[in-house]
């Protein structure tokens, strides 16, 4: 059966590290990186990319619209 898989791209320079996306992800895909961006924020990234289903919850809740979401079906 085709499995839905997804991936997100975080605009790490725009990210303010608020962690709202991390909290909103139903599959614990995201985490804040130990590194910081040029503004000094620990930006969000896909810590467990294999778990992403492309549901876009993270993108929808991000107040700074830094997340782009892709979704497809795995063959």
């Amino acid at each position, binding site marked *: 059966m085709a499995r839905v*898989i*997804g*991936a*997100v*791209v*975080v*605009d*790490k320079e*725009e990210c*303010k*590290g*608020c*962690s*709202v996306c*991390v*909290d*909103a992800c139903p599959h614990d895909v995201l985490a804040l*990186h130990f590194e910081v961006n040029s503004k000094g*924020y620990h930006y969000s*990234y*896909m810590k467990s*990319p*294999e778990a992403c289903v*492309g*549901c*876009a*919850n*993270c*993108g*929808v*809740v*991000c*107040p*700074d*619209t830094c*997340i*782009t*979401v*892709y*979704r*497809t079906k*795995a*063959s």
Partner: protein
Amino acid sequence: MELKEVTKTEGTMDIQDILKPENLVYQKTKLLTDTPMHYCPGCSHGVVHKILAELIDEMGIQERSVGVAPVGCAVFAYNYIDIDWQEAAHGRAPAVATGIARVNPDAFVFTYQGDGDLASIGAAEIMHACNRGENILVVFINNGIYGMTGGQMAPTTLEGMVTATTPYGRNTDLNGYPMRITNLIAQLPGTSYVTRQAVHTAGGVRKCKRALKKAIQNVLDKKGTSFVEVVSTCNSGWKLSPVAANKWMEENMIPYYPLGDMKDSVKGEHSEN
């Protein structure tokens, strides 16, 4: 873009095969400008701006839209959504929007106001604009506090809540009671659609977007004033992390300000539920 860290593990599809234009399901709307928002990390204002921008784009009304920015943290809303804007004096946005809409009946005019702006200093203007049934959308950000000026008490501040001007908690003997102004607004025959939403979860954001869409459509259909309250966080003012603020809001704000539609009608008709 940093792609190295998002490479999928073996056995599943390669990340590059997913990140293709045909698989795109969510991205920043072109109606949002490239100016980074000045809001604190995790602030609800950004989410509400985003869904408004998405709707203006999706509904194809950019050329008809005029936004009225308040005095409050959202004073710079005009930097973020790519439409014509006007910045109003504290509390006067509904009167400003009335002026715009009356001489431009084809325009889609909305105000974007905080709880201090709308429920305190601008209480008269919002009541009368709604009572006249001005053909405008009112977006009301209720974060229970004066965010911009450093976290003082708002009319909506909960009983016992600590703010800069209620350092021992809001005392109802001294300060009166948290004001459910949206319930009062719903009583006014000039309003058509009155609802209370929240944007702290993905489901909430999607619901709020549907509510805003209906509200905008009502304005386009000249049904009267549409009023959308968004129970929001001000994590800086509340002195909580963004995620903790969302939880606090769910546990404390929403029970006092329950979500849902309060009125769905056309102006002149009473059908509160």
